[in-house]
């Protein structure tokens, strides 16, 4: 892979540069050599996740008092972009750990934070986010998993579907109805741990892409957990979910940016080498214009993702709109850029020996998870409606 000069200077601080370098070193040395085989075998990237832990990357967003780096959304975006240049499956597994523990950071008691954050920071424990169910995808309020208080325990019943890191993580934040009659105001979040009685996993899914990420059902059958595993106040579950997604969406945008960067790098390198009609194909305007559009859209997406992350880190009051914008734009861009990359590489692009077909397969999920790009547009539209209210 060709190391090139950054196209645009975003005036990163020394600490931010360090994050970028550390994540890229890991990608270059550990992810690039392993990604094709993990994809082929549908194998979880256990060894790489342990390398990520050793590099202290899991602790980026954890406050210093709990053993983390004390960084914010932008620091996570920087790390995830570099990991995604290697493999979006690995980067997704990394992102899901943050997603899975954000509820504790946002709404958890001090005891809950002390219990979980230090070991997430070291990467000793991995987390996962359990919201989606067979009947509750875009319509998250369709959740049917219940939690009933029985003495000193909550008893959970229900099944979560398509959970990233399912079966690999040790700590799960589960959204369950504590008061089914109250609808959206009747949900709460609970921390369920591997080994809790009545908690088990379904089979591993066989996916189109991000195959180095493990996706499984979570099954709770009279799953008993101690009372103190409730995150925040009863009934505030969906508020915490929305705040969690607002924080994590720019990260998904950065996966799109990193993925598209990798696809662009492959495309330009190939176009300079491939000779047809006595010229390298980059000499033809048709190809050049494709590459120009890819590069321009990529840079625009990067700028928007960085702006959204910085806006969030500045503790702005309203973050939903820009967060959704960064996710929808960068992921639609990544789908287009990776598809174009396969086109630029032509026949070679279609073959598994070359990395771009995997990139195209990996890109698709970015438009679907963490809120489909249709839901993102809903969020943006609703925010616009509120902003311009007379």
């Amino acid at each position: 892979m060709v190391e090139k000069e950054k196209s645009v200077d975003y005036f990163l601080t020394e600490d931010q540069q360090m994050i970028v370098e550390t994540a890229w070193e890991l990608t270059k040395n550990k992810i690039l050599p392993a990604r094709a085989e993990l994809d082929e075998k549908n194998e979880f990237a256990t060894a790489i996740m342990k390398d990520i832990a050793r590099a202290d990357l899991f602790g980026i967003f954890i406050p210093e008092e709990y053993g983390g780096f004390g960084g914010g959304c932008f620091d996570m975006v920087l790390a995830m972009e570099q990991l995604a240049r290697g493999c979006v499956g690995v980067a997704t597994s990394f992102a899901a750990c943050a997603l899975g523990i954000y509820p504790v950071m946002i709404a958890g008691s001090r005891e809950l934070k002390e219990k979980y954050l230090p070991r997430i920071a070291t990467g000793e424990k991995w987390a996962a986010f359990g919201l989606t169910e067979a009947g509750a995808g875009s319509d998250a309020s369709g959740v049917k998993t219940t939690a009933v208080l029985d003495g000193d325990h909550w008893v959970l019943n229900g099944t979560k579907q398509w959970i990233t890191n399912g079966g690999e993580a040790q700590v799960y934040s589960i959204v369950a109805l504590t008061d089914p009659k109250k609808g959206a105001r009747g949900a709460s979040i609970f921390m369920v741990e591997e080994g809790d009685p009545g908690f088990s996993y379904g089979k591993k899914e066989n996916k189109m892409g991000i195959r180095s990420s493990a996706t499984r059902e979570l099954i709770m059958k009279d799953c008993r957990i101690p009372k103190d595993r409730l995150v925040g106040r009863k009934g505030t579950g969906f508020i915490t979910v929305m705040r969690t997604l607002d924080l994590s969406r720019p990260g998904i945008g950065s996966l799109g940016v990193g993925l598209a960067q990798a696809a662009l790098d492959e495309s330009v390198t190939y176009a300079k080498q491939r000779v047809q009609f006595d010229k390298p194909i980059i000499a033809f305007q048709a190809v050049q214009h494709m590459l120009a559009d890819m590069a321009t859209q990529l840079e625009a997406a990067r700028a928007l993702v960085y702006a959204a992350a910085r806006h969030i880190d500045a503790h702005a009051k309203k973050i939903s709109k820009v967060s959704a914008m960064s996710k929808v734009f960068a992921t639609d861009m990544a789908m287009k850029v990776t598809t174009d990359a396969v086109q630029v590489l032509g026949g070679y692009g279609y073959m598994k020996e070359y990395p771009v077909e995997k990139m195209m397969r990996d890109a698709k999920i970015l438009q679907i998870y963490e809120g489909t790009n249709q839901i993102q547009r809903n969020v943006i539209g609703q925010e616009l409606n509120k902003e311009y209210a007379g």
Partner: protein
Amino acid sequence: MEIIVCVKQVPDTKDVRLDPDTNTMSREGVTSIMNPFDRHALEEAVRIKEEQGGRVTVLSMGPPQAEEVLREAIACGADAGVLVSDRAFAGADTWATSYTLVKAIETIGNPDLILCGKQAIDGDTAQVGPGIASRMGRPYVTCVQKTREVGADHIVVERMMDDGYDVVRLPLPALLTVVKDINEPRIPSLKGKMRAKKAVITTLGAADIGAEEQCIGLAGSPTQVVKVFSPEPRGDRAVFTGSVDEQVDRLVECLKPFI
């Protein structure tokens, strides 16, 4: 356990070009890296420290910019870095280099273990490690591909040979030079990088280590590099084309007179 790892900053040989006019290496725009074998030596030292407890100090003889590899080493788990640097060290061959490093080591302390990479990728002599050990009267093993056992007063290692490996037991204090097979070096961690940024690198000059003038640098070097050149290609060249069978037949015809 006190461990010292000797590291060298070298040009990244992928980038090296020969200046045709001066017949020396063109250093312009060439990136400097930690000698790859030393990276493995450092990793082994850090692993031993993690298992046995103790301290890892990295030591380098070089110009002021060699401080970069010492910081890199700290980011990868070393506890402290010492740079031994002085104009008077310039032009040193492996004899003067091992002298200088020994004086520096003796100034730092009395390490249980000294680890070095097998050889530097610019000099390729593989002499400095054995040179240090011999001057210090320490037992040493080169080409170590694995450390099997580390005790308070002994170490057991595997020495790579052409046809297999030997298992060798040495008393401590000792010196080892290592090959790349010994381990997979870790990526520098974020916390490591922060430590490296804040670390104070001790710099020692010739006087600080009590080095005698006639033993260091050019003055202390029995060997000198007189000329570096790319050999001119000699003789006729021929290119065979055709099918593999045809090419092999032609090649055999060419070789027959020499058999």
